[in-house]
């Protein structure tokens, strides 16, 4: 049996090489195996150069397992029936069990999501919507996201407009040399909300659920500074003379004109800064002059509160910016983290009936604008887990 493990290893490495995900050491392993005999060498060449691989992969997808599984399960049952005597429950016990179930399920109003989809929907949780609150410099609170286009403020220099999903700050060019005072506004996005802004310099910001941005109504000539708590996707207008700085609790990000995503939730241990295009530098808020980490596109800087250090790595940026396009994308992510992110957008609490279930990992993409039951269904179907929704709590357990 051990011989096969080596074969599995080689096959895996050749596959990794084919998608460009291989290290130098692993490459050497392949080379050593290729040298062993001409058969290996020729097989390697075939696998490396096969351009019909697309077809082979598609063929794999086309195979339906439903009927085949039914076949073998029937055969297995037939064999087992020959071996065992079936035990029949006396009638009274069977009916009693059915009645108990009925009483139990009518006591609390909830529904259970299992993979056989027999239950009817009683309650569900709706996804988030475009909503937020604007807090002005003089502490006025204005609700955003109510339908229509509203002009919230206008004077000679500044115009603030709210469409149903974007708050826009526009500087009006006037002949007056009058300088606009440096006033700060705040936009608060609650759990179950998301909102977009266009700042006075034309920079675009999209805020995710449970996030908070503090920013000047119009920008200073020398520096553009904003404060973020939570998660936001930025598209910053380039300006060589006026750097753009994002302050979060633990780190500050200096922007050289570009698109990037920042996730800095207070209840997370790690702050992620992901660069899509352009260039940014990240350093600790507490640091002075030195210690700035510069990112290249496709890289992510992670500040870990526990280690107080900034770590740089390459990532699939789509994982960290999918939310901007209405998707959740997970790659081998533990259920605990998945539900944490979902809970901000849907606004629910999570209850794991078994601690272990937190660490089940999943991969996939999901649309953000479906009800939570659709998403939980998909997870349930792909696993042996069961979800129940009670008021605004999602309960995770194992299917019996």
């Amino acid at each position, binding site marked *: *049996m051990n*011989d*096969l*493990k080596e*074969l*599995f290893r080689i*096959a*895996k490495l050749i*596959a*990794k090489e084919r*998608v*460009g*995900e*291989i*290290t130098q*050491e692993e490459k050497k392993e392949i080379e050593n195996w290729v040298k062993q005999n001409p*058969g290996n060498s020729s*097989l390697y060449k075939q696998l490396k150069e096969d*351009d019909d691989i*697309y077809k082979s*992969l598609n*063929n*794999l*997808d086309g*195979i339906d*397992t439903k009927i*085949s*599984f039914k076949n*073998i399960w029937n*055969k*297995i049952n037939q*064999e087992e029936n020959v071996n065992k005597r079936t035990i029949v429950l006396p009638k009274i016990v069977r009916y009693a069990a059915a009645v108990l179930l009925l009483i139990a399920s009518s006591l609390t109003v909830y529904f259970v999501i299992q993979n056989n989809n027999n239950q009817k929907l009683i309650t569900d949780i709706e996804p988030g919507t475009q909503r937020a609150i604007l807090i002005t410099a003089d502490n006025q609170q204005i609700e955003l996201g109510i339908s229509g286009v509203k002009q919230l403020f206008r004077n000679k220099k500044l115009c603030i407009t709210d469409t149903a999903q974007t708050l826009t700050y526009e500087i009006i060019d006037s002949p007056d040399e009058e300088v606009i005072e440096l006033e700060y506004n705040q936009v608060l996005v609650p759990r179950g909300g998301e909102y977009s802004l266009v700042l006075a310099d034309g920079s675009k910001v999209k805020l995710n659920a449970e996030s908070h941005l503090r920013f000047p109504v119009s920008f200073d000539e020398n520096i553009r500074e904003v404060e973020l708590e939570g998660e936001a996707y930025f598209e910053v207008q380039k300006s060589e003379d006026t750097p753009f700085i994002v302050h979060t609790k633990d780190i500050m990000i200096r922007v050289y004109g570009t698109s990037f995503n920042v996730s800095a939730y207070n209840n997370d241990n790690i702050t992620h800064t992901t660069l899509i295009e352009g260039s940014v530098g990240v*350093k*600790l808020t*507490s*640091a*002075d*002059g030195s*210690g700035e980490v510069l990112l290249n596109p*496709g890289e992510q800087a992670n500040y870990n509160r526990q280690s*107080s250090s*900034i*770590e*740089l*790595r*390459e990532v*699939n940026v*789509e*994982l960290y910016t999918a939310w901007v396009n209405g998707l959740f994308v997970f*790659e081998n992510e533990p259920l605990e983290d998945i539900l944490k992110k979902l809970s901000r957008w849907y606004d629910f609490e999570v209850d794991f009936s078994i601690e*272990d279930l937190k660490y*089940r*990992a*999943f*991969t*996939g993409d999901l649309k953000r604008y479906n009800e939570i039951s659709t998403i939980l269904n998909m*997870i349930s179907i*792909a696993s*042996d887990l069961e979800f129940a929704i009670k008021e605004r709590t999602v309960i995770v357990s194992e*299917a019996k």
Partner: protein
Amino acid sequence: MKQAIDTHIIQKFRNADQKAFRIIFDTLYAIMLSFARRYLNDTGDAEDMVQEAFIGLWNEKQKFLDEDQLKSFLYLTIRNKCLNRIKHLRIKEEYIQRNIEEYNKDTFFKEEVIRAEFLAQLKSVIDNLPNQRRKIILMNMNGYKNKEIAEELNISINTVKLQKKIAYWQLRKDLSSSLPALILIAGFFS
């Protein structure tokens, strides 16, 4: 969404859990079928051999501690069943030109296991990529040029290049897979 065959699943399988067995079956059936077909060209025959092998897997469920052991059992069992079948066919119908000696060889078996696993691993790695990157990689592997990929997926050529560049950086890295990428302790020098 896909769940991997982890220790939970294996444990439940050993305890005769049907759902766990189904997950194992769904994950491995297609690749085992393609492996069996390398021995038996007739699809009907190949399906039978593979299904018998899975029934055998179920009957011996107590034996398996990890996914590699499951796969090894399946490859070996399917090979044996296929060889028996070939012998059976050869005796029945003389005009079938099967050179059974070739199929008997250990090297043939090893090569076919690698071929099957390669495809399975490739599928797994690609399936785990985010949507857009997966499409780019598949098209690239299929010989499409950057420009064609960009047009087909309605994205900029820069995005295509960037995604490929990320893959290329991985290739060039001299770090072994156990070392994390650059760790900088900011503020240390201040």
